[in-house]
């Protein structure tokens, strides 16, 4: 019996584990691992003290705050509106639903600089939307609010596209059963539907958050780039590169990689806990 089952495992319907694993490792190495490691190598010419001085400079630390806080707020906002958007797109049939669905991907497709310039113009004090807010004394373009809006823009597809397939597959029998057992509508959502989409929502949140920290193209236009106020970390890296300070730029890049890694890693841990709780 044991022998038989072992043999069965080896003979998968589609063979080629060796080949596909080889391709996976080569691709990951060439495109992700080696470039990332080269960042560490680029640091080898820089002394430890220089690295520490670069990454703890007060102006640089201020940019971490701007980048992290704006990305976090943007990711949270995206979670709320992402669930609503995904809900609308999967649960209801209405005219232009497919077109609306296609719009979700636009932030992926659009060159980020184009998005940045468009957002800056619309949200500036003389723009369509910025003008309205200007009347009540709220400035959007060239402030941290503007940065957050740009990050919401680029983060929305991550959240919607993570949740959508889960919502589509979710069997409506659960909701019907809950309703027949007398649960209120809000209770059905929060106790039946929400736990199902939570792991996917966490993935979307993590992706949007991590992407927001690294985003450059769309943000530099709408940020005022004033030190200690509206400078993002990627901008500091760019300006260090322009000053030929490759060591400093790389050191700060490494900090950003660590930020992103910690975010995605903690999301993964959180997710496995959520999954266990859901199964148990």
């Amino acid at each position: 019996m044991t022998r038989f089952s072992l043999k069965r495992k080896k003979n998968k319907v589609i063979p080629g584990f060796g080949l596909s694993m080889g391709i996976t490792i080569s691709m990951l190495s060439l495109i992700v691992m080696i470039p990332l490691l080269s960042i560490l190598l680029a640091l080898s010419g820089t002394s430890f003290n220089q690295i520490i001085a670069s990454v703890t400079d007060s102006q640089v630390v201020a940019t971490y705050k701007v980048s992290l806080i704006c990305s976090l707020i943007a990711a949270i906002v995206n979670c709320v509106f992402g669930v609503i958007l995904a809900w609308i797109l999967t649960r209801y049939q209405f005219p232009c639903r497919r077109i609306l669905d296609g719009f979700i991907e636009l932030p992926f497709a659009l060159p980020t600089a184009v998005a940045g310039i468009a957002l800056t113009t619309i949200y500036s004090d003389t723009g369509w939307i910025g003008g309205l807010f200007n009347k009540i004394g709220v400035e959007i373009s060239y402030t941290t609010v503007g940065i957050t809006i740009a990050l919401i823009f680029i983060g929305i597809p991550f959240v919607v596209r993570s949740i959508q397939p889960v919502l589509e597959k979710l069997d409506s029998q659960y909701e019907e059963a809950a309703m027949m057992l007398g649960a209120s509508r809000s209770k059905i959502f929060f106790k039946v539907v929400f736990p199902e989409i939570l792991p996917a929502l966490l993935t979307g949140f993590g992706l949007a958050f991590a992407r927001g920290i690294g985003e450059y193209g769309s943000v530099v236009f709408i940020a005022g780039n004033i030190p200690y106020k509206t400078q993002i970390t990627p901008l500091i890296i760019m300006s260090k590169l322009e000053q030929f300070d490759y060591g400093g730029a790389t050191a700060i890049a490494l900090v950003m990689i660590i930020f992103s890694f910690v975010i995605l890693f903690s999301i993964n841990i959180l997710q496995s806990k959520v999954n266990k709780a859901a199964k148990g």
Partner: protein
Amino acid sequence: MEQDGIFWPHGLFAKEYYAGDEAKTTQFLKDLYSNVTVLDTGARGSTTTFVENKKGDVLLAWENEAFLSVKEHPGEYEIITPSISILAQPSVAVVDSIVKKRGTEEVSKAYLQYLYSDEAQKLAGENFYRPSNPDILKEFSGTFDLNLKLANIDSDFGGWAAATKKFFADGAIFDQIYKKK
């Protein structure tokens, strides 16, 4: 409120204006930059922010950017030329090793020489770049303020390496004017 994409001309300008008084120069820059609301990543970005998005009261710009803005939006803006400014000259060069490898030496040198021909110098002037040929520059005296005193990186500030170290390196004057008090 002002906004600006280029720091160095003003840093050098102040130095010239205060005849080398370091403390006064830094203070001037601090006062100036405390009013700056947007630092775009490039000069054209600054022009867009100021001219198209109407951000700020004053744009500190390159001469050609200023002229272009006025040309695009006639009657909306006034150009104020300072008494002292700095000569900015992007470099153009034929790189021997590359033109030899590609066999483009002749055409590259011809292009380089053309840039200094009367025809090209006039084209530059028409597009608001100061011609380097003094005779042709005079023909554009209606456009450019020829009384403007122009400081030079090499002769007035000891070259780019020294100027970069003094103004733009980490912890140098530009970082100092933004350090929190």
